[in-house]
């Protein structure tokens, strides 16, 4: 039984909230514009891909598990490991935060149970609009993660913590006397997979001691990935959107939409491949400036009126111009991607380049699906911006979607969006 388009839309709207909820730990630390839960999930999924490949784990479960492991936080909020134990007094609270959680075994079990129950209840609410099949799939992934009942579940639990530690070091620097002391303690308590233990050693050697280490390549790559948490999408910047969405936030939504909708498709699709193509889509922009299709035209605009006119519709040009622009963009992106993935082992590089080629050529069912999900996700974001700001023009996005979407699942969702956001 498939999920109705309106219900799918409800799910995607609620999951998009993860793109605006900041991670609690960084808020407490006073970090300016801290990462969102979605941005954290985005990089955890990359951890799953790159480190999971070294660990020889089943990627078809690992990646979606990493992507969706925080869905419950839409309603449960971002519960830190200090859940329910922090004193009210700010000074006392800071003292507790300087060290990892120190509790009796019994208290840990009670809190763990309480957290699990709250999160399970929240997750049930998040998944409620979806078909029983999708609910079962997402719930089983989350249970595996939460209970550590599989190698993949244990691995995601551990990389969740390692990614947070790395983010902490990136925010605060490798300081010996910061909140990170507690984070290191907590991470070393939980991480037991040999690949992740080696990765932690590399973090220590490279970032604290500036010494060469075994997994320098993987660390460099994953830190490069982290840059997308701070890169806003150009299409929103040129439209003066307040707090434009970052590339990491977008990629999270794109990957989630593509993966969920792949279960609703009429044909069997390689979901692992789809997820990977989604993840890679914007990666080159950690180094390469993102160019919007409107940039060339905007450079020629002399007045605000001309600018408004250009931005008020989708790109109009000859087939030849479109092809030339597309080829030029592809070559630039591919070249940059090669540089970014150069530190990884050759098999992973090969896989990533072939994913890039596949979605660039748009010839396989998976590529078409990924590319149409990309357009649809952006259309949804545009509708959300239009709802917040009456001056935001939805027209170009609708035009783009009208020429790009031919898959029936996406077409139904597009119509559901039109109805949901239609101005009365």
């Amino acid at each position, binding site marked *: 039984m498939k999920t109705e388009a309106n219900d799918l839309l409800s799910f995607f709207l609620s999951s998009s909230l993860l793109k605006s909820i900041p991670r609690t730990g960084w808020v407490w630390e006073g970090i300016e514009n801290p990462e969102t839960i979605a941005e954290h999930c985005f990089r955890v999924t990359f951890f799953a891909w790159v480190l999971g490949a070294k660990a020889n784990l089943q990627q078809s479960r690992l990646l979606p598990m990493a992507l969706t492991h925080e869905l419950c936080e839409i309603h449960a909020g971002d519960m830190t490991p200090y859940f329910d134990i922090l004193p009210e007094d700010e000074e006392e609270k800071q003292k507790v935060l300087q060290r990892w959680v120190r509790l009796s075994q019994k208290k840990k079990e009670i809190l763990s149970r309480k957290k699990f129950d709250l999160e399970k209840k929240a997750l049930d609410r998040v998944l409620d609009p979806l078909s029983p099949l999708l609910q079962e799939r997402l719930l089983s992934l989350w249970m595996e993660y939460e209970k550590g009942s599989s190698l993949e579940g244990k691995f995601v639990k551990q990389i969740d913590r390692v990614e947070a530690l790395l983010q902490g070091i990136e925010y605060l620097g490798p300081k010996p006397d910061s909140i990170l002391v507690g984070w290191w303690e907590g991470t070393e308590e939980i991480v037991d997979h040999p690949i992740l233990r080696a990765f932690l050693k590399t973090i220590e050697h490279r970032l604290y001691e500036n010494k060469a280490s075994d997994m320098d390549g993987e660390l460099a790559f994953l830190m490069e990935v982290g840059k997308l948490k701070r890169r806003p999408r150009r299409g929103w910047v040129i439209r003066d959107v307040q707090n434009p969405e970052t590339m990491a936030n977008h990629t999270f939504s794109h990957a989630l939409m593509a993966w969920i909708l792949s279960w609703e498709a009429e044909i069997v699709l390689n979901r692992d491949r789809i997820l990977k193509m989604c993840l890679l889509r914007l990666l080159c922009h950690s180094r390469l400036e993102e160019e919007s299709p409107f940039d060339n035209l905007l450079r020629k605009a002399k007045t605000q009126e001309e600018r408004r006119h250009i931005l008020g519709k989708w790109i109009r*040009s000859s087939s030849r111009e479109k092809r030339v622009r597309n080829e030029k963009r592809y070559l630039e992106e591919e070249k940059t991607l090669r540089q970014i993935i150069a530190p990884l082992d050759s098999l992973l590089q090969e896989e990533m380049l072939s994913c890039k080629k596949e979605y660039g050529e748009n010839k396989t069912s998976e590529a*078409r699906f990924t590319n149409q999900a990309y357009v649809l996700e952006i259309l949804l974001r545009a509708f959300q911006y239009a709802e917040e700001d009456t001056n935001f023009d939805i027209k170009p996005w609708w035009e783009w979607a009208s020429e790009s979407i031919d898959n029936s699942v996406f077409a139904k969702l597009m119509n559901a969006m039109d109805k949901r956001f239609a101005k009365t």
Partner: protein
Amino acid sequence: MEEKKYYLTKEGLDRVQKEHNDLLAFRKKKTMDDAPSILQSEDVNPEYLVYQEDLHLLEAKIAEHENILKHVELISKPAKGKRLEVCMGATVELVDESDKSVNEYTVLGTLEANPMEGKISSESPVGKQLLGKKIGEIVVINSPIEVKYRVQNIRY
């Protein structure tokens, strides 16, 4: 229920045929060379599970290609009488009535569509509106805000 047709250019058809042949060869190799031991039950053999999953995907791909080849319709230049209207394979020049800007699309089947290169699917909302239109006719793309184009030129 009418079965879905797959419109392909000659080049597209050759590509699908080659892919199909490659998949069949790959299946033969996978079932002969790569099959892991199934002496252990599938509960404890993750390698077997991955292998089964790979095979399932492979079979699905082969079936997909066979379905396409069974229902293919070749896109070719239409008869002289039909060349004044938009058919599969047409490259259409459109003028936006509001500001006279020109847009161009080539209308192809879903398997060869690539909107970023101006190749749109006949099954997309724009593609559906274009098919059958003649030079001078108006094409209306319905949306939260309507877009009206006039067909300026059609070529094959």
